[in-house]
């Protein structure tokens, strides 16, 4: 039998009886012989009480025929619990919450007022014959609990007595599972999970006119609040990237079995990051450096904000319609039309939706366990925000202007150091790119305080 190439996106749900939910997680696994590489997954988790609505999106770029998704779920989901949504909503959420660059212009030191402008320059996320089949499944201890076609996906819900039977059946159906998946699948089965398997229905996909696969959503009750990542690391030696957008009524979402660490923020960096269009590089390298600094063991908080507003806005907040589409069931459909603005202040009436954006780079060694979360009452705003200041270029003469120019080189050097510390970039290269006059930098009056100490 021909084994077709496979691209896995796995999600996992458990069930329980108390008041925390169990979310599913997404990960994807490239088949061993494929050129596909696990780049990034984006998961939106809406959580309230024990209700969970999870949207999973990946930057899958291969042949859609090669895509498959495996999601362990707590129960056999009904057709109405499964939905397919638009990629644009997740792109909007990404733009709204992405680390941002803001710029200021130094005022004329001889006569102050401030010019302030936000650059709407969000860093992009690193996108990063049925009767026989059923009979064979039964003989392997696998039960096809339900089958649906939703949007461009053919979906099956499977239960199994043993991992071996499930893996054999999936392999026979053309899915190539990574080596080592047996133990992990077995572990989930013993925790009484079902498996949600989706692949692309080519006919429906071609009819749809879409060029990209759309995110799959599922809704379920589950007390455990978690995101399984273990299957994604089974055959992968490298690190994988995951963005989690958690929406709650209460406040920040944080991980309980790994540290949640704020991304460094509110730091001045050189203006060439904007002029030379280096912000994406900056964000990528800063994230890599911070991951290393935390010994590859932390989950990073990149944004935490009430969804009613933003300041500055990298993109407008999501409309009620978009939030409802993501599963935020407690907001009214009656929509607030998004308005293009630099800054949206908190309105009188809140939607009561709080967004936490978490970013994790994980591997099997440093993240052996699935991610567990808790909802907190922390509503303190946080955003990854980096500042550039354009120097005043006037020629007016006054004492303040002299002082300004005297301190400018020092501040520029500090920005170079900030950039180097954040990204690991070479300080000399940064200074060269910034064109800081090194002579004045190294021989400023302040640095050479000893110059006039003794008369020569």
């Amino acid at each position: 039998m021909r084994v077709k190439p496979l691209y896995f996106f796995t999600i996992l749900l458990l069930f329980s009886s108390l008041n925390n939910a169990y979310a599913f997680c997404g990960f994807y696994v490239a088949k061993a012989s494929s050129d596909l590489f696990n780049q990034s997954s984006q998961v939106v988790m809406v959580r309230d009480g024990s209700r969970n609505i999870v949207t999973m999106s990946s930057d899958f770029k291969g042949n859609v025929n090669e895509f498959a998704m495996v999601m362990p779920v707590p129960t056999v989901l009904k057709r109405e619990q499964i939905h397919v949504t638009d990629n644009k909503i997740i792109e909007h959420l990404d733009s709204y919450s992405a680390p941002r660059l803001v710029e200021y212009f130094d005022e004329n030191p001889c006569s102050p007022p401030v010019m302030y402008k936000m650059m709407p320059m969000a860093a992009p996320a690193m996108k990063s014959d049925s009767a026989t089949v059923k009979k064979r499944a039964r003989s392997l201890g696998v039960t096809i609990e339900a089958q649906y076609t939703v949007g461009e996906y053919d979906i099956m819900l499977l239960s199994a007595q043993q991992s071996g039977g499930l893996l054999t059946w999936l392999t026979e159906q053309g899915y190539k599972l990574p080596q080592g998946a047996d133990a992990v699948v077995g572990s989930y089965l013993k925790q009484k999970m079902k498996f949600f398997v989706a692949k692309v229905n080519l006919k429906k996909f071609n009819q749809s006119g879409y060029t990209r696969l759309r995110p799959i959503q599922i809704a379920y009750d589950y007390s455990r609040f978690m995101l399984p990542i273990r299957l994604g690391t089974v055959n992968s030696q490298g690190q994988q990237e995951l963005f989690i957008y958690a929406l709650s009524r209460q406040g920040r979402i944080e991980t309980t079995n790994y540290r949640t660490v704020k991304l460094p923020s509110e730091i001045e960096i050189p203006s060439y990051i904007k002029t030379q269009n280096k912000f994406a590089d900056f964000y990528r390298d800063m994230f890599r450096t911070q991951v290393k600094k935390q010994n590859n063991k932390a989950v990073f908080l990149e944004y935490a904000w009430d969804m009613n507003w933003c300041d500055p806005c990298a993109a407008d907040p999501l409309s009620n319609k978009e939030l409802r589409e993501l599963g935020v069931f407690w907001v009214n459909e009656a929509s607030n039309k998004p308005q293009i603005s630099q800054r949206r202040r908190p309105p009188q009436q809140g939607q009561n939706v709080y967004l936490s954006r978490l970013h994790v780079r994980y591997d099997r060694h440093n993240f052996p366990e699935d991610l567990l979360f808790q909802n907190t009452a922390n509503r303190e705003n946080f955003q990854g925000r980096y500042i550039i200041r354009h120097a005043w270029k006037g020629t007016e003469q006054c004492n303040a202007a002299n002082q300004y120019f005297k301190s400018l080189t020092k501040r520029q050097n500090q920005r170079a150091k900030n950039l180097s510390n954040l990204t690991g970039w070479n300080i000399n290269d940064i200074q060269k790119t910034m064109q800081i006059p090194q002579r004045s930098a190294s021989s400023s009056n302040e640095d050479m305080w000893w110059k006039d100490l003794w008369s020569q």
Partner: protein
Amino acid sequence: MQIRQIIDPRYYQLAVQSSLLIWGMIYLDFSLDVSAITSVIGCALLVQILFTRYYQLNFNSLSAINSSMSILLLLHASHFAWLALAIALAIASKFVLRWNNRHIFNPSNIGIVAVLLFSDSTWLASGQWGHSLWWGLLLLGLGLSLFIGLSRLLSSVSFLVFFASLIFLRALWLGDNLSIPIHQLQNGALLIFSFFMLSDPMTSPNSATGRVMFGGLLALIAWVLQFTFYIPNAFLYALALSSPLVIVINRISWGKYYHWSQTLTRSKLCE
């Protein structure tokens, strides 16, 4: 043995707790400020003073400060007033919830559990301690035995041994890689709970056998809550649930009631 005759164990506990709090604020991004810390400790002392006056007992601040530190290390809140409420309940429980002339609940434990259950404004710093400090916490925790004796630390040791065994057995049954149970046991909050809350000799069983039984029972309850009912921070709820059982354990297995002052000179009921 000699050390505990000279130094009250609560000073050691306070030194470790203060160091951990400073570490958390500097390196682990704990959002506590000095005013919050002083308010919580101040509230603890105030409630302690009020109750000791009411019951005409001698006032001692050490236990109240230790309980405050436990709360500051493990509990987070949207406003520090919640932390103050937790410590007020903790101190009050020592005087109000009593049986046979001893308090029933571990004070900081019942204070934390009460606010966690009845308010949405508090949460446990379970992930924020990370996993890198485990060896240090283990050493500092076992260091407590120099002051209270290893026998008095048996509740903590027994809890950790039984809990670890249950976690490893579950992993073996599931066929999980052993890095998973190891990771679960390295959790900083779990170790802080074990050595700097559960270790309280005042609310532990009197006999060594009783303490081993108590640790085992607590581990079983915590494990069931965590892995069957998926309750986060199950160890805290498990301690609150099992604390009244100490009365039963003390009846089954007799032993000498611990007193902070047994090696020193003072004698008080409610420290």
